[in-house]
């Protein structure tokens, strides 16, 4: 049996990181990522609960929802606090719960903005440009770089969260994240602009009328998107419309 207060160690943290890669698999409406969180905590917490105590896992079954790429930060921080509590520092279960609640909300918002709102569109925009110009190596590079970025962020997150503990709150209260977000936002918008330029350059290749119609269609679609009409529905409805117009022109 392990001694109480023993350190978690890098190997067990790595075990938690591996489980966190599949965090979304246990997503549920009631507790959201709570089961995934417990799954990630289980290998690391064995070391200081004497392999038999389940209270540490049971108390983390409460509601938990964060951006999956930033969840390792919270998990690392929670493990650090649990370890410090076992080592005799004046940390209560309420403090740990407060730490979790204080971090998850802001990290969820930051993660969604950074990864879903910007990094993913950036990667996909690059991928579209490479695919249009038939550059398979570019596509492969985007795929690998994006995956490396996501996985290394999660790996960094768990070790950084564990190293910082309470200090995580201060770290994310600063302006550092905003700077990173501004850079990624700028890059995404620039690459988005490049793709837009490429698309509009290619329209006249099918005739000047196509360019004019494409301009009108872009404006109409943009108007509909602002009114929450999905782009997929605009494209679907456009298909029979175009076929009908072609049929009418063909009859003339």
């Amino acid at each position, binding site marked *: 049996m392990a001694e109480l207060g023993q350190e978690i160690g890098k190997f067990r943290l790595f075990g938690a990181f591996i489980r966190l890669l599949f965090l979304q698999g246990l997503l549920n409406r*009631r*507790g959201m990522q709570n089961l995934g969180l417990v799954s990630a905590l289980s290998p690391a917490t064995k070391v200081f609960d004497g392999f038999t105590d389940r209270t540490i896992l*049971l108390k983390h079954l409460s509601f938990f929802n964060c951006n999956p790429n930033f969840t390792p930060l919270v998990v690392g921080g929670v493990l650090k606090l649990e370890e410090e509590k076992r080592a005799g520092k004046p940390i209560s279960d309420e403090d740990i719960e407060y730490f979790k609640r204080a971090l998850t909300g802001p990290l969820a918002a930051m993660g969604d903005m950074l990864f*879903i709102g910007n990094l993913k569109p950036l990667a996909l925009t690059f991928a579209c440009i490479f695919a249009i110009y038939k550059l398979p190596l570019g596509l492969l590079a985007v795929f690998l770089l994006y995956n490396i970025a996501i996985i290394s962020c999660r790996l960094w997150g768990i070790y950084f969260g564990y190293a910082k503990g309470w200090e995580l709150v201060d770290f994310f209260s600063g302006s550092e994240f905003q700077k990173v977000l501004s850079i990624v936002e700028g890059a995404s918008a620039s690459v988005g602009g490049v793709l*837009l330029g490429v698309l509009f350059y290619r329209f006249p290749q099918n005739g000047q009328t196509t360019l004019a*119609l494409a301009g009108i269609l872009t404006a109409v679609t943009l108007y509909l998107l602002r009114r929450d009409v999905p782009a*997929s529905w605009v494209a*679907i409805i456009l298909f029979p419309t175009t076929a009908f117009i*072609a049929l009418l022109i063909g009859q003339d």
Partner: protein
Amino acid sequence: MPTIVALSLLSGLMAVDHRVGWQGLLAQPVFAGVFVGLLTGEPETAIAVGVLLELIYLSILPMRGARIPDQIAGAIVGCGTAALLIQNPGEPLFVFVVAIGVFVGLLAGELGARLTAPLLGIHNRILSSIEFSPETERTSLTRRVFWLHTGSATYVFAVETVSVLILLSAGYFAGARLTRLTGGALVEGAEYWSYLVPAVGAASLIHLFWQHHLRRLLIVCAAVVFILLWLI
């Protein structure tokens, strides 16, 4: 038929990456097109469909509980249908087949979301109803969570595979009928649609980045690239 089964299994793997794993872009239409292309031996057709679907889906972000189409079903059915149709004898027209692929893919995306939503809802309800009593043994708790995880991944794989198997079979059948039945004017209409549909993608891009501080950057970059390409 073996290709359709192989593509359905591929969609199952993509669903595991998208709904269980770390969402490593495997399930995005532009990359799904590459994998479908490699599997069917028609990379050019599959990637062309994948790019068009990606452009249309760009504005749809999985945030704030938005109802989104099943992009995996859309991508596999769209790219798969086009790749299989182009292999048919009688030299089908490339642009027409791509147009059919994109259209079938978009429909499959919408139908797939409605087909899998109740099945994934059952999965969600089961996970939500799980209770752990304070008397639960630690080993039994961790083992139960592990098996829940494995079962969850298997269920997601099975749901997507079966859903795509149905949709791809139907999509290919419909696509094949469409390519045989339509006259010259409708072929022209479908082809013209595929020339125009990137405009929906352009609108998606503008919508995605049309924020106060990014607007100028987007327009300037688009204008510079347009002028440069024009000059070259």
